[in-house]
C-alpha cells in the first residue's frame, strides 16, 4: 500500500452544443439585453490601442469542407509589445480577450485587433507573435486550442512551430496576408490540411 496523493481529476468536458451563444453571446442567440455587459464581443482592443490594427477573417471547416455556422471562437493575445493584460506595463487599451460567433449564414468570422508582439517563451527566448484561439461548437467534445501566427513575421525560431514534425503542417497555423492590415486564417477540423491543434 502506498499513500494516496492529494490530487483531483479535472472535470470532464462536454460539448458546448448548438446553443452556447445563449450563455456566452446572448445577442448572437437573438436574446439582446439578457446581459447588460457581454464579455469579449467588442473585441480584444479599446480605442487607442497601440500598434498596427489588423483584421483576420476566416472560416472553420468540418471534414466535408463545409463551414461551421454555429462555431464560437475565443481569442487571447498580448499587446504590441508582447505583454499580456494583467502584466506590468501592459497597454491598458488591450483587453486581449475576444469572443466571436461565425456568421450564421456564411460561417465567416472576423477578428479586428492589434498585431501582438513577440512574447516570452518559458525558459528564455521568444515566441513569434501569435494569437491563441479556442474553438467550441456542437460536435466538438473538448474545446480545441490552436494559434494564429503571421506570414510576414519571422517564425523561424518559434518553439511551438519548431515542435511540428511534419513541416507542411506548420502552414496551417500561419495567417496569409491579403492586403495591408488584412489576413486570412482558415481552420480545418478534419481532412486535408487539418489544422494543428495543441495540447499542453
Amino acid at each position, binding site marked *: 500500500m502506498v499513500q494516496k496523493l492529494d490530487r483531483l481529476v479535472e472535470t470532464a468536458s462536454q460539448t458546448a452544443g448548438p446553443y452556447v451563444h*445563449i450563455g456566452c453571446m446572448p445577442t448572437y442567440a437573438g436574446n439582446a439585453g439578457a446581459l447588460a455587459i457581454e*464579455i469579449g464581443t467588442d473585441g480584444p482592443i479599446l480605442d487607442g490601442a497601440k500598434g498596427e490594427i489588423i483584421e483576420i477573417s476566416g472560416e472553420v471547416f468540418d471534414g466535408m469542407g463545409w463551414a461551421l455556422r454555429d462555431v464560437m471562437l475565443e481569442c487571447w493575445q498580448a499587446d504590441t509589445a508582447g505583454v499580456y493584460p494583467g502584466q506590468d506595463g501592459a497597454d491598458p487599451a488591450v483587453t486581449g480577450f475576444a469572443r466571436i460567433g461565425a456568421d450564421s449564414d456564411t460561417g465567416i468570422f472576423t477578428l479586428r485587433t492589434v498585431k501582438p508582439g513577440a512574447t516570452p517563451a518559458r525558459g528564455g527566448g521568444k515566441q513569434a507573435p501569435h494569437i491563441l484561439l479556442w474553438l467550441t461548437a456542437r460536435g466538438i467534445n473538448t474545446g480545441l486550442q490552436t494559434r494564429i501566427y503571421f506570414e510576414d513575421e519571422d517564425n523561424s525560431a518559434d518553439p511551438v512551430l519548431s515542435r511540428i514534425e511534419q513541416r507542411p503542417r506548420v502552414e496551417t497555423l500561419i495567417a496569409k496576408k491579403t492586403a495591408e492590415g488584412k489576413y486570412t486564417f482558415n481552420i480545418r477540423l478534419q481532412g486535408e490540411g487539418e489544422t494543428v491543434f495543441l495540447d499542453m
Partner: protein
Amino acid sequence: MTTDLGPLIPRNRDAHPPAFDTGYKTSVSRSPKWPLLSMESTPSEETGPRFGHSVLGEHDNNLITNWTQGKELAVGERILVHGRVLDENARPVPHTLVEVWQANAGGRYRHKKDAYFAPLDPNFGGCGRTITDEDGYYEFLTVRPGAYPWMNRGNDWRPMHIHFSVFGHSFGQRLITQMYFEGDPLIDICPIVKTVKDRSQIEGLVAALDLSKARPMDFLAYKFDIVLRGRRQTRFENKLEGM
C-alpha cells in the same frame, strides 16, 4: 505583476471524451484525426482574462428573475445550484467567472434556432453567470431544466442539464461542461454523456441533491463541484518561487 505559478499540469486526456464518437453523430465530421501537438505550456496559456464584479448585473445569478429584471418569475421547480471551483491540487479557484445556460422547465431553449414544441416561458431567458468568492464557492438560483428530444439517432433525449463555462485563471484552464441531476434515468442512455468513457468521470458530472442548502417551501438545492487543471507545484506554497 502576475506571479509565475508554474506551467500547467499536462491535461489527462483520458478524463475527457475523445473527439470522435460515432454515438454522437455531429462529432464524426468535427473531430481532428491527427494527434494534438503536445507541448509544455507557455506564458500565453498561463495568462488569461480576468473578470471582476463590474461585468455582473444585479440579477445575473438568478435565472428565475433575470430575464424580467425581477418583475416576474420563471415557471418551474425552483432550485439552487452551488459548489466550488477547485484545481487538480484541490485548491480553490477564487474570483473566476462561471457562466451557465439551459433550457426552460419544458425543455425549450430561448434561441432563434430552437423549434421544439414546448412553449417558451415569457419569463425565462436561460442565461446566467456569477463569480466565485475567495474560497472558490459559487451559487445561483434557477428552475430545473426540462429534458428534451433531439434527432441524433432518431429518438434520443437529453437528460435535464445545465451548461457550464468556466474560465479559471489562465487561458489553458478553459473548460465547458454540463451538469446533470442525480436520479435522472436519461443520463445512462444519453449519447453525449456517453462520450465520456470513464464511469467515475461521468459521476463527476452528476450533481447531488443537497437538502442542507434547500430552503423549506422555496427551493431544492444541488451541489456541483468543478475541477479545473492545476499548475505544477515545485515549491511549498508559503515559499517564494526560487527560494
